């Protein structure tokens, strides 16, 4: 579904992503993990067509990725990307006006699930509820690929749980593929099919989570530490 072929991304002198090659199958939930600055967000932005690779090619469903890939990809930014003066309802309506594939009924259902009110202004929301609004807008689109950059970071455990549950409830894995970057591995561990581990912009491991458990009897965090140590040696 998503393919990277010798992809590098350089910001001036800094090599953010270094010669990445991998392929992610359809219908999976994939986690991109790794320490700060390991290239997780850059990798996700390359999939979203928000930045261009310096070298190499990225394709989704066989199509080379450029800015227009947003027709197939729903992207959740780690930043607050919404107008503060809009209400929750206006934000959703604005999203609907921008994307033909936006499913208004689904949006209402997720809104209800997240216990959000349409009338409240975005700037008056708590950080947790702003995080929830982002989830509503991202998951309400009927697109083949959903990308989420740090959807859980800086949020309390209850909000994190509601986001993970929302993800399970509203993503259709028969038609959709999900890629998440995260530090909150414990929270999403049971939801991931595959993890992709980065260090210093390089891919140092890609593995099925159930394999890590059965073959090595490790959780993702332990596996990650082990891989990191092996690379350092």
């Amino acid at each position, binding site marked *: 579904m998503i393919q990277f072929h010798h992809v590098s991304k350089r910001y001036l002198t800094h090599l953010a992503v270094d010669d990445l090659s991998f392929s992610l199958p359809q219908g999976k939930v994939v986690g991109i993990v790794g320490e700060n600055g390991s290239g997780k967000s850059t990798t996700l932005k390359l999939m979203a067509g928000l930045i261009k690779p310096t070298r190499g090619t990225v394709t989704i469903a066989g199509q080379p990725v450029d800015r227009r890939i947003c027709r197939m990809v729903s992207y959740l930014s780690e930043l607050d990307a919404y107008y503060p003066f809009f209400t929750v309802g206006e934000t959703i309506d604005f999203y609907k006006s921008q994307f033909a594939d936006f499913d208004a009924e689904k949006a209402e259902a997720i809104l209800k699930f997240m216990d959000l009110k349409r009338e409240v202004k975005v700037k008056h929301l708590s950080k947790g509820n702003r995080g929830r609004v982002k989830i509503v807008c991202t998951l309400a689109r009927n697109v083949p690929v959903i990308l989420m950059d740090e959807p859980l970071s800086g949020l309390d455990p209850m909000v994190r749980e509601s986001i993970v549950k929302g993800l399970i409830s509203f993503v259709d*894995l028969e038609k959709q593929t999900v890629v998440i970057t995260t530090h909150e591995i414990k929270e999403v561990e049971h939801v991931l099919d595959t993890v992709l581990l980065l260090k210093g912009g390089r891919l140092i491991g890609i593995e099925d989570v159930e394999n890590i458990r059965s073959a090595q*009897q490790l959780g993702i965090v332990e596996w990650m530490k082990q891989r990191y140590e092996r690379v350092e040696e």
Partner: protein
Amino acid sequence: MGEAFHNLTPIYIQLVERINRQIVRQDLKPGDKLPSVREMAIQVGINPNTVQRTYRELELMGIVETRRGQGTFVTENKQVLEKLREMMKESRIESFVREMSEMGYSAEEMMEGLNRYLRRKKGGDKE
């Protein structure tokens, strides 16, 4: 989110065992309908693909049947359920005996200890 999962075994196997225990305990009766894949995924907080794999595994074991368009049901085949009951018993006994042997207890000591424990427990229950 119910009981937590541990890292030693794949989650789909842990879920298979959990459902088997519910069947042996009769919390799930023959012919009962299991939650849909998505409902189960939300209930236990795991990936729907993993639940799918769990149901497939249970189906291979003959413990559940999938009826097209209706869902997944616990089998009404008495033999299969009796075998499952035996299998769960065997596996518990096996791990008990293995742990006791590792600590150096003999078979006689295990039998004697188990008997005494059960007698005492029965007596205690009466009071």
